[in-house]
Each structure stands twice: as structure tokens, then as C-alpha cells.
């Protein structure tokens, strides 16, 4: 292989949807790029695959940096593959606010599956979006879903307390906690603890694990009941311990969502939010164009700077103009 010129030219975006449905992994990866970058071909692609989505189960994994999210993901992949299920992973890492670049390092702990066609791991940079996911993570799950994966594991950036976006996307959300990161008050704060379906106390062989479990159990007992009380599962992900128990709890939660129709309800909530998001994008683009280019608003910034009007008044005028 010393003459690259003899190799066929890379295929085009035209038939991506068909090719990825037929199991072409090159088409899959290029389709994800189109969607992630919101390239012109992405809209048609997503439209074409939508009827073929809805099969995959979405599992969110969130928790503090260094808590063992990638290691736990690796163990879950192994266990699911042993049952013959196909697994995709989206691993989100933060984008540098300074340079716009990112170092995506979750993959380094998931290298062992490189010969397994039933596993596909994709790193995504958050690209300035807060909340623990990237703007297009939801759309990328649809591409992986249409390809035919049974499970899509979404690993968030290492979160603090407010990064709850994954719970809006995933069917089941795991929150990983590890001993030694804070006192009881940390657990009282609002945030990720409230949206987790299953709590995982990882590094359960470390000092303080038992106390952490007790604290979390106390916290959960105070939460108002929604019909599902999040179980607490102890794991030592690095040694593969607790994975069977964790999968059993995931299966229970899945059954609970199905029997109570909540999976369908969550899907509707998610689709409603995504629809409004996209509508917001479209509207904002039109409003921006109006403000920047429409003669009616030529003096708007001068008036604002002179403090003769306030931003809310201009905003109302923009929206009125849009409807006119």
C-alpha cells in the first residue's frame, strides 16, 4: 500500500442515510460529523432517518471528574456485549473557553473494543454549551439509533452540581458519586441528585463509602416520591464489581418506565424541548438579521447607547416586525 492514488475517492454525502442504515460504518461516522457541525446535509439526513429511530435505549452517565464514568462505561459495554447487544458511546468532554479547542481523553479507557463491530465510541466536545452535553448530542443519538445500536451510553463532561441536561435526553440516568469529595451539605444542594434515576457509589472500597451511601439514602428519603425511588448501587468499576447488580437496577428502571408509560412521556417532553430549541435557533437567526440589516432598525443601537430606549422595547419591536 504505497500508492494512495489508486484508492477510490471518498464517497459523497448524498446517500449517507441509506448507507448507514445498511451498516456502513464510514457512512455512520461521516453522518455524525455532518450532524455535529450542522452542515447543510444534516437536515435532510435527520429527516430521512427519523422513521428508523426509537429502537435504542439511552443510558446517561454523569458524575464528578475522576469519579470513574469512563471506567464504568467500559464495564457496562463488556457486560452488554456478553449478552450480544450492540453498544454505542458518546463521550462528551469540555471545550476550552480560551482557545475553542478540546482534548478528548475518555476514549483512552475504552480501547479494548477496537476489533468489535458491535461497539462504536465517539468523543464530542461540549463546544461552549453548559449542562454537560454538546448542542447536537441529542441529534447524534438519533444517527446512532438509526444505525441499529441497542444501547447508546451518553457520558457527560465531569459535572459539578447543575449539569442536568443528560437527564432530559436519556431514558435512565446514572449519577456516580465517590467517597471523599464533600460533606453532607454537598448532597443537600439541588441539582444532579434530583434528576438521577440510579445512584452509583463507585470506588466502594475507599474509606467513607459506607457513610456516603448512608448520607445519600437519607437525602433520597426526604425527596418527595414520584413512584420511583432511586436505588443506590455500590461498584468498584476498575475491578468490574457491582456491574451485574447495576445492570439489574437499570433493567428494573426500564421496566418501570415502560409499565407506567413514562418512557413515552419523557420522549414527548424531550421532543417538545428539542422542537422549541430549533425553533428558537431559527427565530434568533431571523431576529439577528432584522436588527443588523433592516433599515427600520438602523438607528436602534444608537438609541440604546443614548439610553433613549431600553433593550426590551427594541426586542418587542423586532418580534412585532417579524409578525408583520
Amino acid at each position, binding site marked *: 500500500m504505497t500508492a494512495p492514488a489508486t484508492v477510490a475517492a471518498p464517497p459523497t454525502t448524498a446517500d449517507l442515510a441509506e448507507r448507514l442504515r445498511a451498516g456502513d460504518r464510514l457512512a455512520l461516522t461521516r453522518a455524525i460529523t*455532518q450532524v455535529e457541525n450542522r452542515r447543510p446535509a444534516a437536515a435532510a439526513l435527520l429527516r430521512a432517518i427519523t422513521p428508523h429511530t426509537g429502537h435504542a435505549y439511552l443510558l446517561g452517565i454523569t458524575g464528578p471528574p475522576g469519579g470513574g464514568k469512563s471506567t464504568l462505561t467500559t464495564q457496562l459495554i463488556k457486560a452488554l456485549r456478553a449478552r450480544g447487544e450492540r453498544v454505542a458511546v458518546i463521550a462528551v468532554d469540555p471545550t476550552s473557553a480560551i482557545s475553542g*479547542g478540546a*482534548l478528548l481523553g475518555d476514549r483512552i479507557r475504552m480501547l479494548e473494543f477496537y476489533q468489535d463491530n458491535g461497539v462504536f465510541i465517539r468523543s464530542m466536545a461540549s463546544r461552549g454549551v453548559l449542562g454537560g452535553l454538546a448542542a447536537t448530542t441529542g441529534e447524534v443519538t438519533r444517527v446512532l439509533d438509526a444505525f441499529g445500536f441497542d444501547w447508546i451510553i451518553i457520558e457527560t463532561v465531569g459535572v459539578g452540581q447543575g449539569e442536568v441536561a443528560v437527564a432530559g435526553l436519556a431514558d435512565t440516568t446514572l449519577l456516580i458519586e465517590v467517597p471523599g469529595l464533600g460533606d453532607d451539605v454537598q448532597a443537600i444542594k439541588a441539582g444532579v441528585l434530583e434528576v438521577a434515576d440510579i445512584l452509583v457509589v463507585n470506588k466502594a472500597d475507599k474509606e467513607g463509602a459506607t457513610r456516603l451511601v448512608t448520607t445519600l439514602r437519607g437525602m433520597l428519603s426526604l425527596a418527595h416520591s414520584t413512584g420511583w425511588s432511586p436505588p443506590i448501587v455500590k461498584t468498584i468499576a476498575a475491578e468490574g464489581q457491582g456491574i451485574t447488580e447495576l445492570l439489574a437496577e437499570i433493567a428494573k428502571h426500564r421496566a418501570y418506565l415502560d409499565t407506567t408509560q413514562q418512557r413515552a412521556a419523557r420522549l414527548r417532553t424531550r421532543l417538545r424541548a428539542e422542537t422549541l430549541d430549533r425553533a428558537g435557533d431559527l427565530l434568533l437567526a431571523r431576529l439577528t438579521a432584522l436588527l443588523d440589516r433592516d433599515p427600520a432598525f438602523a438607528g436602534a443601537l444608537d438609541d440604546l447607547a443614548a439610553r433613549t430606549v431600553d433593550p426590551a422595547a427594541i426586542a418587542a419591536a423586532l418580534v412585532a416586525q417579524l409578525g408583520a
Partner: protein
Amino acid sequence: MTTATKRKIRVLVAKPGLDGHDRGAKVIARALRDAGMEVIYTGLHQTPEMIAEAALQEDVDAVGLSILSGAHMALFPRVIAELHKRGLTDVLVCAGGIIPLDDIEPVRAMGVRGIFGPGTTLDEVVRFIRDNVRTEDTA
């Protein structure tokens, strides 16, 4: 919103073969990140199959191979063959580390387009990648 639509250059930084010196690879990874690229680093001791499979799943625009073991004449053709086997013919392949002068032309002929030895500045590497990655949407 518009920042999300801007195209980012994605680069895989990999260490094929058996040498355990990854300081250089990590410095390069950091420099590319600081230049605004999205860098996937896969660590030491990667086989050609592992590198090509990671390049496919991550859909990178460029692959940077760091090698100090002297096995480049054996490993690089295999990496390129594995990339091509997966249809990744438009991925820019670069190499850094210790590649003797006599080997530079043969390595280039294999399809390694950027070769960066000791003394290369980080700026040169960044600029080369920016100027030579694929530009149009291919799939």
C-alpha cells in the same frame, strides 16, 4: 448558536508500536488543542488497527503518529493500509519523532504527508495541519 456550526479540525494523536516515550505526543496534543482543534489522544502502544479504528469512529481530519522506536518503516505502511481499508483516504497523516533523513522520502512516498523531526516548532505543526486537512464535505 453560530459557534456550534463552525467546523472544527479533529486530530487523532497516536503512538504506534512499543516505545514508551509520550512526552512529545502530549505536548503536540496540547498545542493543537490550544490552536482550537479537537484532539483525541489514545495513549501508548497502539496497533495500526487500533489507530485506524479510532480514526474512523472519531472521524478525524488528521492522524498524527509519534514514533521514537525506529519501527516507522514497518508500522506506517500498516497504519495507512488500515486507514484505506476503512475508506479513510482523505485523512491527512503526519508523523513526528525520530525519522532518519534517509527514510524521509520513503515515508513520504507511503503517504505520510507531514514529517516533523526534532527542532520543529509547534507553530509549524499547527499551520501544516490547518493548511492540509480536507476541506469539502466528504462522506
